[in-house]
């Protein structure tokens, strides 16, 4: 079978074309270097389109008490102070400019009565902060970046998947990829590479993520020697669809709660009032009446407990279901229809503010959300962990390799606030592009070792030599079940130990999968190649989750249900040992600059 290569040269290669990758490519191109942009799917289809609620930025258009300082402290509080505080600072300061820049590139956000960008409430944000377009903000964002980006001289490689990275003399040298259409290999030689491949949701059975999110970026970076961080922190979004079975896991935006939606158990009780964490008591309403006033914009009202952070809301839902107060299909009720008691033309309002949700439930579940509560439950949504990067430049521990967006770690700490992802993509996508271009200018081109490239292509083709090998989909399904059951929302020592053993067995099976058919657009082959990445990130998740013997943010241990001060001053990291094995370590969180520490203290 031919292992012939097409070779492409770029100063900067951006892998991934969601919000972060597009923004990085635009910035690098603006810096005057040659840029290649690799998309696993068609351009404009990346998971950013699924982001619904909005992009968080302290524009202070709706509440003038908002500022970068409040956004900064909200982000740290939500992340349980494991965040890279420098990233949290840059993010809060730069997000408003990044949002305004989108408007200059054609984005049309919903408006305030005085004609500025409207902002809505969201979980963990003290003031209405999310610039949005109904509940399709992600689509608006990716389309704006796409339509701007296609005129910037970027070479776009659609439906191309990267399988490994190469280094030379201690820095990045290139990447090997295949194109889906023909199954031919493409070698990219680049002076700098930006990983913007998104998350790892496909490692779990119930997820809001599409097939693309198999941890490719984290995995290839790890195998090339870069350090991963915070891999135990997986966000389970509290509200995914639970019924019918085929749509289980599809996201229901937090915007529903932002617009006044409430969570109820089978007894009709708003159970979120029953458990408000101490560090949020001062800013959370303690009765439904105050919560509703907050939704209406009363500045003296505190926010309803449905808008507590995602980790907490997800656990409360799990508790209701476990204790027998769930809905018929194992979720709880999310009710937006109730607002008709409070406002005229409520149905019209809901359809205007939440059009995709209206459409999604109507079409997929035969439910009219303007009259009937939705059934919802947690779904694997987002990876807080990822490639460890420098807060300013987004460069990883491997010189010349950068990361941005979900594939990078640091900004969100132990739990991400809703709306902070879209702003993350913009702020750090831009920074990664800028500094990758700078790195490319400062370095000469390098060429991956031909022997290593040959080895990587042969490894990628190996499944074709085993036409009677195991079905790759079967291995993928078993991996997803294992991670869901043993390393999901509620974790226990003995289950995770079983997961470690299970992963070893799956690795052996993955090494023996077979592929039928030829190399042209063959999803069986693509699934076989994704397995390595899924297994790598799963192993990193379990290793880190076993080590964190406490509960914090997205990581909940049934056997260590409380937060522990002993785990508050460092991040767990994993890196590749010289023999290729995964090695777990700790990296201390550097002390915060005085003026930032003071802000955190003031806002407590």
């Amino acid at each position, binding site marked *: 079978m031919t292992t012939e290569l097409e070779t492409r040269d770029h100063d900067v290669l951006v892998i991934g074309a969601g919000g972060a990758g597009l923004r990085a490519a635009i910035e690098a191109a603006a810096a005057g270097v040659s840029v290649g942009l690799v998309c696993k799917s*068609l351009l404009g*289809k990346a998971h950013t*389109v*699924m982001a619904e609620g909005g992009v968080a930025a302290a524009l202070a258009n709706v509440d003038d008490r908002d500022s970068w300082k409040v956004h900064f402290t909200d982000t740290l509080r939500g992340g349980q102070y494991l965040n890279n505080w420098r990233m949290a600072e840059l993010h809060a300061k730069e997000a408003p400019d990044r949002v305004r820049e989108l408007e*200059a590139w054609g984005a049309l956000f919903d*408006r305030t009565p005085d004609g*500025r960008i409207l902002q809505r409430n969201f979980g963990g944000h003290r003031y209405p902060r999310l610039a949005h377009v109904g509940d*399709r903000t992600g689509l608006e964002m990716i389309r704006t970046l796409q339509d701007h980006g296609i005129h910037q001289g970027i070479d776009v490689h659609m439906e191309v998947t990267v399988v490994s990275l190469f280094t030379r003399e201690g820095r990045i040298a290139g990447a090997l990829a295949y194109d889906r259409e023909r199954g031919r290999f493409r070698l990219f030689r680049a002076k700098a590479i930006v990983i913007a491949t998104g998350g790892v949701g496909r490692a779990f059975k119930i997820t809001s993520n599409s097939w693309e999110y198999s941890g490719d970026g984290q995995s290839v970076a790890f195998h090339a020697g870069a350090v991963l961080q915070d891999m135990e922190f997986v966000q389970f979004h509290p509200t995914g669809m639970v019924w019918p079975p085929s749509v289980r896991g599809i996201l229901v935006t937090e915007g529903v709660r932002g617009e006044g939606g409430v969570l109820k158990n089978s007894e009709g009780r708003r159970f979120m009032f029953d458990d408000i964490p101490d560090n949020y008591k001062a800013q959370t309403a303690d009765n439904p009446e105050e919560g509703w006033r907050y939704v209406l914009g009363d500045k003296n009202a505190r926010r309803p407990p449905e808008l507590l952070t995602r980790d907490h809301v997800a656990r409360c839902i799990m508790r209701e279901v476990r204790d027998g107060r769930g809905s018929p299909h194992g979720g709880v009720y999310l009710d937006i229809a109730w607002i008709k008691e409070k406002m005229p033309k409520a149905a019209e309002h809901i359809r205007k503010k939440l059009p995709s949700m209206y*459409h999604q439930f109507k079409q997929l579940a035969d439910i009219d959300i303007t009259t009937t509560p939705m059934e919802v439950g947690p779904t694997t949504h987002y990876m807080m962990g990822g490639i460890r990067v420098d807060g300013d430049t987004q460069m990883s521990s491997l010189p010349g390799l950068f990361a941005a967006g979900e594939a990078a770690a640091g900004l969100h700490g132990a739990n991400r606030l809703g709306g902070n992802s879209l702003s993350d993509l913009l702020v750090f996508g831009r920074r990664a592009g800028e500094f990758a271009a700078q790195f490319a200018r400062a370095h000469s081109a390098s060429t991956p070792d031909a022997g290593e490239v040959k080895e990587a292509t042969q490894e990628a083709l190996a499944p074709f030599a085993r036409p009677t090998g195991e079905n790759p989909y079967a291995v993928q399904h078993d991996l997803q079940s294992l991670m869901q059951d043993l390393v999901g929302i509620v974790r226990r020592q003995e289950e995770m130990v079983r997961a470690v053993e299970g992963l070893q067995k799956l690795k052996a099976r993955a090494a023996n999968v077979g592929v039928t058919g030829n190399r042209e657009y063959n*999803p069986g082959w693509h699934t076989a190649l994704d397995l390595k990445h899924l297994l790598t990130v799963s192993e990193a998740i379990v290793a880190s989750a076993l080590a964190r013997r406490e509960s914090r943010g997205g990581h909940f241990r049934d056997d260590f249900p409380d937060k522990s001060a002993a785990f508050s001053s460092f991040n767990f990291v994993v890196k590749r040992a010289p023999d290729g094995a995964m090695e777990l370590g700790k990296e201390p969180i550097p002390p915060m600059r005085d003026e930032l520490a003071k802000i955190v203290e003031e806002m407590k």
Partner: protein
Amino acid sequence: MANATFQIWRGEQGTGSFIEYATPVSEGMVVLDAIHDIQAAQANDLAVRWNCKAGKCGSCSAEINGQPRLMCMTRLNELDLAKPVTVEPMRSFPHHRDLVTDVSWNFRVKKKIRKFTPRRPDAPDGTWRMQQEDVDRVQEFRKCIECFLCQDVCHVLRDHHLHEEFIGPRYLVHAAALEMHPLDTLDRREELRKAHGIGYCNITKCCTMVCPEHITITDNAIIPLKERVMDHAFDPIVKLVGLIKGTTPGP
């Protein structure tokens, strides 16, 4: 669980035939679920594009029982399962493999449309002011998920293959979103008439009927755009100025 039968188009580069697969169906399933089940259990190499599985990315366009639809938003309970369900690729684009077509033409067309060019900011801080009612219509156009079903069904492209002369409903919507954008300053009417072939559309509204985002493509985008283009082309003052400058737009 009951079984349903699917006839799926399999083959490469325009050749191929329907191959029949039976697969169990359960409550709430959509066509894409059935395709995935068949792919995982019976035909690992069945080529299909998909991403979000929630009607938001526009990847899984196909012709289901002859109708252009998104596979992820087509419920099995709205189809007659007593008969085999046919699933075939979009027919207006070059076939690649199984359900996958080469849609790259669309991406090339978009590049030819001049990009958004805003007026100077309204406020000293570099921001603009727009009223919600002024952005409502353009927001409708910007709901487009680029599934290309409208391009697939448009007879100018499907039957007459005028891909070089006509940009198709998707890009007329895109152009309308730019032309009606409150901040945009460019005038694209001339090229819409000449290079982009807006005149080829004879308002059969097939595009509107298949749009999964329910964008009223013909009434809200194409007709107003046609009116603007015609007003401009036949405006006597424009014509007079054109005569003097020697740039009269022809009929």
